[in-house]
Each structure stands twice: as structure tokens, then as C-alpha cells.
């Protein structure tokens, strides 16, 4: 069974369709793997064994009767615990939601169910997706499968680590400032942030509504496209959902090609502040793309220097409002102080006990940025910077079909290394944030190793042109794997189980 868990979703789907392997076997293999290694990784907050096997058995039964099935039916998947699921707990990585069960499914979860993909469980994250290391989870950190002393990135470290550790072939993530792409980069996996509105946010617990986007986590570009086509497309429950068709993403991923493609290097997103090994792998990737017929040009986005600052105003502002609902009245934790407390005191005590430091930090920062007298200088200015960033992207896409950069300035750092330095932690997202600010799509694919740790390469495309990411990403993936003689994750060390 060991080889079953190493199959890509696309190949596993073919084997399921051909009857070479059953959905129950495939699902059980992943459940076994979780049992074997998750004690060391801590990617899962909840494992959904019984229901996953029931869905798998249903797929096998349906297949035996010859009824039509979705191509990915029976391919198991993990779901970031920020996305609500009926019948399983959803915690958002926070104590304030410990034990809470949603009475409804997120739209993306409904679509997974419709495709009959067994949901293996819910993956770990920084509390309410606030962080870049998954160390801010109330349920303990997730560890990087490449080095258990290092972080798997964040906030979606659980989904990335689960896929990197072969606990799941696919996972769902959410990306507000890089929470899919940055963990993808540092775990040697693929992560896609779709165009804003391309995937319904209904049922994704909101951090910053105008930045959040659900997207696929996988080991191959094609797998990401397969999942993207399932979860993408219009949803009437989300007012910001695009009505455009999802597009031929799988076709683009199957036909990776950069010949004649203009690829823009963003001057501001590499060089100074980027680890030497990361720069090295980035330059190698550019050389490969050139030899494959791409035209590499340099573009400048001068306003990106404001992006991180503007992001740290808009994100906490929206988050401070989105997280107001966690008050101990309708659901979740309630802490009652001694005496005969009023509801105001219960709310204050509940939120004090239920939220971790990073969440409190962002709520206070957001409350500050929105408060009377500061709105124009902070939130208002940050929204103007958003316009400037969009203009920079418009100009850049006038010169290039896609843009390219390292996904992160560094490889995975050690657990605890940046925990007491919020600013250093925030700098991890410097290359991923601009895409969220402008609503455009981005992908991170493995770009090789630096000092034995994965490096990510990011492509960005104009809004609604997600297919370009898959075409360019698949091309680079194939060029790199040609050099490595196989997938990067084949080079990952064996995980020493700590049951």
C-alpha cells in the first residue's frame, strides 16, 4: 500500500476508474499513513475516519453498478479547519470554537461531497489563519515533513504538511496574504490562490473578507487544476463570487508550455532581503524557462514597497470586525467570571481566554486603524495603496503574460525562531501579499532545495486568467522534474514516526 499514498491525485483517479484499486483501499491507505506519521507532523486536528470510509465505499458501490462518477470520485482530500463541515468539528485553530459543529457545509465542501471525494479530516492552521508558521494554532504547531524542527509555513501549514507527508493527495487551503502559497513553498508542494471571487468563500471562516480566497493544495500542478475545477465557479451565496466559467484549467495544466510566453520578473520581489539559496534556485528556474522558449523581461512595481504596510492595515481592520461574532452568546466558548457578571464582562472574559496573542494583536491593530480620527490615515490610505498596487500590476501585465518571483524570501525557519518578533514573521508574506491586494491569482510550485529545504517559485497572472498559471506552472514543473529525475518530494527524508 505504501505506493498508493505516493500517487498523484490524477494517477490515483485513473487507477480508481480502471478498477485497479478501490476507493476504500485508497482512503484506508491514507488513514493508515495519518495514523503512522501524524503524531510527528500534527497536520490534522480531526480525522474523519468513519465518514471518509463510508463515502469511499459508496464510490466503490456506485462504480460497480456502472453509474457515472466524477473523475476524482474516491480520491481522498483534507480540508483546512477554517472551512466549515457538517458532521465534523470546525475550530479555526482557536480555543474559542473548540467543540463547535457547524450546522451547514461550506460551498466548496458541498462540491467535494457532490464529487464523492472522501474527506480525511480537518487540518491545522494558525488561529483564524493569522500567521505564517502554524505555530499560532491553539492545538500545537504542525511540523515540516522536511525537517521536524522547522515550521511548515502558515497559516495553512496543516494542509501543506499533510500533502507533503503523503497523508493526503489533495487539500483545501485559504489564502489571505499567502497562506496557501507560502506553506506550499516551504514544504515542496503546489499551492494556488485563485482569482478573488473565483472560488466561493461561503463557509470559509472569514479573516479579511476582501482578501480571503479558498484554493487547492497538491503535489502536482495538474492535481491542483483538477481540484480547482471542482471547487471553482459561481455561487449565489457569495456576493463577490464571479459569474465567469472556471475555465479550462486542467487542459492548461496538461499542456504546460512557455514557448513564446512573456514572463516578467518583478524587480521589487527578489534580490535584497532574499536568501542566497532562494535567489539561486530562482535564477536557475529563469534559465530553464528561457531555454524552453520563454521571453524573460523585467518589470517594476514601485508601489509594492507599501503593500505589506497596507496589508497590515486592511487585514486586521476587516478581521477585527469579522471576529466580533465570537462572544460566547450563540456558539463556541463562554467564560463566566466570578460574581454575577453582566454579558459585557462575559464577552470580555470569553474573548480574553478564547483568543491567542496574535489574534488579539490583530484585533487591537484593526480596531485602532478603524477608530474615529484614524480611519483616513490608516484604512482609507491603505485602500488607496490597493489602487496603486492594482495599477502596478496593470502596467506589468501590459509587458508580460505572467509574472514570476520567489514565493518566499527564505526557506522554512525553525520553530520558535520568529514567534516573538511579529514583524519578522509578517515579512514572510512580502512576495505573496500583492496578489491578494489586487485580487489576482497566483501559484507556488517547488523550485528545488536550498540547504536541503524546499524553495518555492511563484507565478502571478491577471485576474480571471488562472489558466495561465497552470500552463506556465506545469511547464516549469516538468522542466525542473526533468532535472531532478522525479518529483522534489521524492528527495524528502523519511518521517520518523512519533506515535
Amino acid at each position: 500500500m505504501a505506493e498508493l499514498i505516493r500517487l498523484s491525485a490524477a494517477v490515483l483517479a485513473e487507477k480508481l476508474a480502471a478498477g485497479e484499486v478501490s476507493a476504500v483501499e485508497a482512503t484506508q491507505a491514507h488513514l493508515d499513513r495519518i495514523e503512522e506519521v501524524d503524531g510527528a507532523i500534527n497536520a490534522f486536528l480531526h480525522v474523519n475516519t468513519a465518514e471518509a470510509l463510508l463515502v469511499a465505499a459508496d464510490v466503490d458501490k456506485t462504480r460497480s453498478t456502472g453509474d457515472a462518477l466524477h473523475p476524482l470520485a474516491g480520491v481522498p482530500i483534507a480540508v483546512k479547519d477554517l472551512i466549515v463541515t457538517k458532521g465534523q468539528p470546525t475550530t479555526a485553530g482557536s480555543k474559542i470554537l473548540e467543540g463547535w459543529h457547524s450546522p451547514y457545509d461550506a460551498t466548496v465542501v458541498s462540491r467535494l461531497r457532490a464529487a464523492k471525494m472522501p474527506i480525511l479530516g480537518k487540518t491545522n492552521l494558525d488561529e483564524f489563519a493569522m500567521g505564517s508558521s502554524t505555530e499560532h494554532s491553539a492545538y500545537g504547531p504542525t511540523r515540516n515533513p522536511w525537517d521536524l524542527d522547522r515550521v511548515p509555513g502558515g497559516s495553512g501549514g496543516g494542509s501543506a504538511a499533510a500533502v507533503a507527508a503523503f497523508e493526503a493527495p489533495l487539500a483545501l487551503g485559504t489564502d489571505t496574504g499567502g497562506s496557501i502559497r507560502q506553506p506550499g513553498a516551504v514544504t515542496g508542494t503546489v499551492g494556488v490562490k485563485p482569482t478573488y471571487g473565483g472560488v466561493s468563500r461561503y463557509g470559509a471562516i472569514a479573516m479579511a473578507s476582501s482578501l480571503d480566497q479558498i484554493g487547492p493544495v497538491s503535489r502536482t500542478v495538474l492535481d491542483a487544476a483538477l481540484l480547482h475545477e471542482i471547487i471553482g465557479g459561481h455561487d449565489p451565496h457569495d456576493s463577490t463570487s464571479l459569474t465567469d466559467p472556471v475555465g479550462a484549467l486542467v487542459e492548461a495544466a496538461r499542456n504546460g508550455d512557455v514557448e513564446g510566453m512573456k514572463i516578467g520578473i518583478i524587480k521589487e520581489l527578489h534580490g535584497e532581503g532574499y536568501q542566497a539559496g532562494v535567489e539561486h534556485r530562482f535564477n536557475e528556474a529563469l534559465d530553464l524557462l528561457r531555454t524552453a522558449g520563454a521571453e524573460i523581461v523585467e518589470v517594476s512595481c514601485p508601489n509594492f514597497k507599501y503593500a505589506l504596510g497596507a496589508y497590515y492595515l486592511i487585514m486586521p481592520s476587516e478581521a477585527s470586525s469579522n471576529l466580533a461574532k465570537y462572544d460566547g452568546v450563540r456558539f463556541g466558548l463562554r467564560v463566566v467570571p466570578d460574581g454575577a457578571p453582566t454579558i459585557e464582562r462575559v464577552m470580555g472574559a470569553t474573548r480574553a481566554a478564547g483568543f491567542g496573542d496574535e489574534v488579539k494583536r490583530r484585533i487591537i491593530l484593526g480596531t485602532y486603524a478603524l477608530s474615529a480620527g484614524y480611519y483616513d490615515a490608516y484604512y482609507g490610505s491603505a485602500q488607496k495603496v490597493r489602487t496603486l498596487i492594482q495599477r502596478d500590476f496593470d502596467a506589468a501585465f501590459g509587458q508580460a503574460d505572467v509574472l514570476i518571483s520567489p514565493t518566499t524570501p527564505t526557506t522554512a525557519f525553525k520553530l520558535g525562531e520568529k514567534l516573538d518578533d511579529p514583524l519578522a514573521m509578517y515579512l514572510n508574506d512580502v512576495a505573496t501579499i500583492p496578489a491578494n491586494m489586487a485580487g489576482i491569482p497566483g501559484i507556488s510550485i517547488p523550485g528545488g532545495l536550498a540547504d536541503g529545504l524546499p524553495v518555492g517559485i511563484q507565478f502571478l497572472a491577471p485576474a480571471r486568467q488562472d489558466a495561465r498559471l497552470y500552463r506556465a506552472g506545469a511547464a516549469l514543473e516538468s522542466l525542473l522534474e526533468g532535472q531532478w529525475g522525479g518529483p522534489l518530494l521524492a528527495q524528502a527524508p523519511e518521517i520518523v514516526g512519533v506515535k
Partner: protein
Amino acid sequence: MPEINREDVAHLARLAHIDMSTEELDRMAGELAVIVDSIKTVSEAAGDDVPATSHPIPLSNVYREDVVGETLTNEEALSGAPDNADGRFKVPAILDGE
């Protein structure tokens, strides 16, 4: 940009309904000061002629028709409630009305 002191944070914590100890207030004030200092350039980045962007992808007039859909049962509605009575959410006394 103004400094952020403990009293400022205490005020913000009250607005945000998060109880904080004196130590927390002091720590938070220090951390916020550093963060705010690092993002202050934002207010100087754009001139008055630059419009604000509140939605990354511009859409307008997205509506729902006025048709009744599925609702939760009373049991489902209360399923996550920390406390309930008489089919309703139960909360401790409220100090003052709106």
C-alpha cells in the same frame, strides 16, 4: 503618527471587548508601536487623486430574489449555544440598553 500607550490599548481593548491585564496592555502597546511605525509610510503613499479600492474585483448589483429558502430548526439554531432556555439563547444580565 501618534504614539500608542497603555491607555490607548486599554481603550481599544474595551472597544474590542477583550479583557487585558496591565502586563498585556504594556506588551501590546510596545508591539503595536513597532508595527504602526513600520506601516506609517502607507498614509503618505497615495495622493488625494487616487481612489480607494474596497473590492479587488469590481462587481455591482448582485442580488437575491425575494424567495424564502431553507431555514434552521430551533434545535439546529441552538445546537452550538453555550446556554439556552425556552427556545432562545440565554445570556447574563445586560447592563444597559442600546
